[in-house]
């Protein structure tokens, strides 16, 4: 009874084409945003905001990026972390060269560089398909990782060899650097993620998104419909890498606050983001959020939550359990629901829609 579409008539195509055609969905989104904007910053502890929410947002964005490539366009990439790295290093160079420009603008711009690099490494995708392409993206992963260490210009010749995030402010409120509070950093992340998610949603619901899905589902037919495969694929690489790049810049500037980026953007990260996309649901934006929530929050929850609840679990044991659990979950999801958490969510909504009279 709570969730009813009956009686909600659409009189225009515009209304029918909305991302959230149902009133209940729109209310739901409003509630989530209210929680994100008000409840979390006011009631969450610093630890919760800095170690749960910010990572969640960053990973969500990266997962959306990979989902555009893998879920929507059907191209597997194992190089997401490297593209994130490109974003982070671009942002570092940009803010060094243009210290006066607002850091949020620069974070958004830095994605363009990783989009460019993404296109470059996406070029083989016209001739290479499937697993072969996955291996080709490993070339990007390892090459870029090497370059991050080997090209000192990228990290401003710092003796530490790492990105050292400088302080940048907006209206005298520090956004990055050590004195930026978790709340500020959280708000910046949230803003970026909301805006970019909105863009992504527009794209996947429009012409480009349909081209991507057409390429994914039946590339030959898509080509015969007049979709240029190379354009569509490269566009997917560009948009996907853009998202990854922005996520990478956010990761270093708003979450890590600097550090040894070559080790941050390792192949392990590429894998985790791929898992987020699989568990969340290939080809679903909301699934990216679910996947990110699941895989970034679960280990933290296991490690810090269980001892806090009084369940004695050693750090090492928690780590092992996490690995096994993630592995088992991936398999379980593929077996039970190959479309991931997103599909479970839909099924849940369907049930709610008919509740309490399922027949």
């Amino acid at each position, binding site marked *: 009874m709570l969730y009813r579409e009956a009686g909600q008539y659409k009189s225009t*195509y515009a209304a029918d*084409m909305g991302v959230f055609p149902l009133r209940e969905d729109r209310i739901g989104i409003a509630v989530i945003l209210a929680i994100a904007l008000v409840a979390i910053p006011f009631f969450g502890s610093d630890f919760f905001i800095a170690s749960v929410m910010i990572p969640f947002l960053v990973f969500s964005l990266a997962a959306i990026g990979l989902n555009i490539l893998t879920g929507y366009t059907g191209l597997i990439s194992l190089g997401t972390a490297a593209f994130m790295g490109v974003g982070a290093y671009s942002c570092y160079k940009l803010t060094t060269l243009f210290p006066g420009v607002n850091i949020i603008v620069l974070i958004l711009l830095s994605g363009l560089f990783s989009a460019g690099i993404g296109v470059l490494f996406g070029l083989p995708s016209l001739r290479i398909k499937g697993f072969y392409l996955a291996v080709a993206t490993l070339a990007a992963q390892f090459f870029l990782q090497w370059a991050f260490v080997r090209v000192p210009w990228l990290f401003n010749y710092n003796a530490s060899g790492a990105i050292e995030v400088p302080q940048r402010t907006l209206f005298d409120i520090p956004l990055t650097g050590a004195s930026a509070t978790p709340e500020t950093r959280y708000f910046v992340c949230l803003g970026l993620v909301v805006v970019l998610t909105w863009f992504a949603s527009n*794209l996947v619901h*429009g012409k480009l998104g*349909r081209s991507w*899905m*057409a390429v994914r*589902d039946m590339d030959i037919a898509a080509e015969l*419909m007049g979709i240029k495969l190379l354009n569509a694929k490269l*566009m997917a690489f560009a948009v996907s890498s853009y998202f990854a790049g922005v996520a990478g810049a956010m990761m270093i500037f708003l979450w890590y606050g600097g550090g040894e980026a070559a080790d941050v953007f390792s192949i392990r990260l590429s894998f985790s983001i791929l898992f987020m996309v699989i568990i969340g649901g290939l080809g679903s934006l909301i699934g990216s959020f679910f996947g990110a929530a699941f895989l970034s929050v679960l280990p933290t929850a296991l490690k810090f939550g269980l001892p806090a609840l009084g369940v004695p679990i050693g750090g090492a044991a928690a780590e092992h359990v996490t690995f096994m659990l993630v592995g088992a979950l991936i398999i379980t999801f593929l077996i039970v629901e190959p479309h991931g958490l997103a599909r479970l969510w839909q099924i849940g909504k369907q049930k709610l829609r008919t509740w309490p009279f399922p027949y």
Partner: protein
Amino acid sequence: MNAEPMNVTGTPLRDKGEVLLSVENISLRFGGVKAITDVSFDIRKGEIRAIIGPNGAGKTSMLNCINGFYQPQEGRVVFKGERRAKMRPHRAAAGGIARTFQNVALFKGMSTLDNIMTGRTLKMKRGFFWQALRHGPALHEEIEHRRVVEDIIDFLQIEHIRKLPVGKLPYGLQKRVELGRALAMEPELLLLDEPMAGMNLEEKEDMCRFILDVNNQFGTTIALIEHDMGVVMDLSDRVVVLEYGRKIADGTPDEVKRDQKVIDAYLGVAH
């Protein structure tokens, strides 16, 4: 441009208009296997042209050559007066050739609506940034094309499955959606590869009606491959018959029906 239709078989043609597309001496090989050998025929504006022949005669390969999916080793495809050794799929699409496929080639993960909307891809002009914003011109464009698509949906009577993913639809409906997707391109030439394969009688009748309506209402030229002889004879204006990659007959249904070579090769065989 020499617009004089080539009268290959020597039979008088029912003059229905100028030649829209002609294939000239096409030969196609896969390694050592000859799929098509030296085939020529033409398709005239506004007609329904059938391509028939036993299994493995090279019918689908022929369509693939026409819209550029295969590149024949020899011969030319002349479309709207432009003669090309190599047709490219997207160029064919841009030029107004649409097609359906023998084994339905729908985008299985997408809804009926989205599938048909992809047919509008070439007609949508708004750039990337407008699309990302989905406001103003981009939204107008999207709505405008949605209207066209809704008309097609009405025409094909598939309103009820508008938002369902096509992967789970029954076969007959999938074929209909595929036709819709091709129609959305507003093609000048529509290539239908066995549009009625695997359908029951009622579905076949529906499909026949749609094909005739398309031909009549929009004036679309249609080339179709079909096995059901009754359908072919009823629908088509002219028929070309292939066997083992060679053309053995070309003419009106009546002429072809009487052709001894065709009877030997094809019609004589009980179906």
